[in-house]
């Protein structure tokens, strides 16, 4: 199963679930990453990490290690 961390530049995906075991999962969900939402990888920074994801009309910068707990359909 792919995760948000594996999205390519300008690729979209729909969230299927959030890995609750990840320590940042609650924080990620509070920022609006919940199942069913469409996300898009908008930018990658110079060192490929963190990435900027568009969710619910906002851009969120997030580390790849944390984006890894956002599972996609």
């Amino acid at each position: 199963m792919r995760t948000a961390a594996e999205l390519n530049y300008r690729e979209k995906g729909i969230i299927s679930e959030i890995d609750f075991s990840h320590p940042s999962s609650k924080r990620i969900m509070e920022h609006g990453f919940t199942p069913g939402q469409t996300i898009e990888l908008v930018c990658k920074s110079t060192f490929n990490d963190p990435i900027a994801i568009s969710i619910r009309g906002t851009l969120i910068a997030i580390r790849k290690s944390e984006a890894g707990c956002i599972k996609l359909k």
Partner: protein
Amino acid sequence: MRTAADLKVPLITLVGPPNSGKTTLFNILSGKNYKTVNYPGSTVEYFTSRILSKYNIKAELVDSPGIVSLIPESIDEKVAVDSLYSHPKLGTPDLVITTIDSCQLSRHLLLPKQLISAGFNVIIVLTMTDILAKRGLKISERKLSKALNCDVVVLNGRSKQGIENLIQATNSNLERLGVTYKKNIIPYNSLENRKDLIDTFKEIEGIVNDVYENVNEDEKIYLNSANRELKILQDGTTNNGFTPDEITLKIDRVLLHRFWGFLVFVLVMGLTFTSIFWIAQPLMDLVDELFTNLNSLVLENFESGWFTFLVSDGIISGAGSVLVFVPQIIILFVILGLLEDSGYLARGAMLIDKPLSKIGLNGRSFVPMLSGFACAIPAMIAARTIPNRKERLFTIFIIPLMSCSARLPVYALLIAYLIPRDKPWLGGILLGGIYFFSIVSSIVVAWIINKFSKRIFSTEGSSSFILELPSYRVPKISAVINHTYNSSKEYILRAGPMILGFSLVLWFLTFFPNINPQVETEGFTTRQIQNLERAERLEHSYASDLGKLIQPFMSPIGMDWRIGVSLISAFAAREVFVSSLALTFKVTSEDDEEQSTLLNSLRNAKIEATGEKLFTVATSIGLIVFFIFALQCLSTVAVSRKETGGWKIPLLQVFIFTALAYFMTFITVNGLRFFGIQ
């Protein structure tokens, strides 16, 4: 402090996610006339104020730190949420006003939902509706109010349009509560778990779908069609959400570009950095001149006695060394404010997160570290925005390694001493080299300290970097000025008494017990005699006794007690080193030539015991190295204690950085000598 509870007035707390316009609302209601209240034992700070009398509400207003949810994760978040439930000084709020960005309803409604289920009495303030209107949409206050069962008010932060409605809603809410209102708040830990979070968001999505309306007709529309109207490309799968601001996305295609983005970042930081120095320098000189003149004025017009010297050398010079940094701090805050308000600072933090995470820091450590090049005190305070406790403590720990501007006069003097008179350009290169060396060495030191981080900070916690990138906008100048004013005031109030107090102690140590020194007066001007007297007084002062005590430590690095005294004086503020050297080495000149004659007397200075030259190339470079590493600033220590909530970290900082400075100086001086450079 007299609080709302003592005075029996209702307490209104402002709560809201970051970037939701909460502080703007606080400024409107309070008239920017506020004070800070600390949560006991922590660094979480609250602004509190009475509501402006023109609004006719008798209530205490509190601005709380921005939070996205009521379920805390970090220690500081827990403190923020705890104090919302029941602040030890302020009590439990009678009314919570929460600001929500209308364009981000589906994210921002989480907090009011939680507040309402916790049992708070809530008013929702919808901000940024003008931006929403540009998208052809508005929010039905009536429907939102019905769905959440609380008052909803639309407010324009720039024009203050809608404030009367908020006042009215506040009044009717407070009236409804009456005096007999019993607060029945459910603690957060029994509130929700992760599964509930998903359900809450589902509910919010339902509400959001319902409340957005077309600006022109009252006809309900779905957001997909709204987005189609705006010609934003959507595929069929998108549900209730906008796409981010188109212009922002376009700008980010450059500013967050993998190559250009980093180049722009380096350029922006370079410009920020140089303007901290080049724009501030003439202003700093002006402040310096003002206090030097004031000092001379006192000395010339009053009878020479200990009290005159207390006023001139103790109080006036002490106040001068506090205020000399104000221009720099103002410029730093103006630039940072402009960058932050435009939305760029969050991008900067994102770009630098990866390299910083390699040495145990966080993208959010970046702004505090940058500020550290001006002054460590505002820098440590800025570290409060780092959510992870370990990363925050670590950032505070290494901030003294950033070469703050107080070291500049010291570098300037020693560079002037080192380079030949006919090659002034060499000085610029040397100064650049010093900054480069100090940046590289702080990275290395940070990397080493990170290896021992568990023992030093005794806290771990998972490292996290999730940061909202706000839409770009033209910075609001009034907000930047307001923020700059408050931060500068905070610097003066926090560092001022400390630096001034310590200057007075130092003045005492350098002035007593030899109050009336005897010197030759023939052939000298009054000014020169005064300087001679000062030098004589210093030579037999308590400070020199102290300096002689540390002579055994100074010899191995090729220096003597006189430099030792100046190094001790530099604990008040580093630039005091220069004036203290000038005093110690009997400078008998007029003020304007202070540096050149000081250079001459440094050239002629000999080590008393051996008669060898004291300021050689090796010892001068050694001194520069000492200043790169040493933590010689008591105000920094005091602020570090306050911000870390204990003595452990500041004491470790003093010990480690001073030992490191001594060790590196020892290696530099003896290494250079080994290679034949005296």
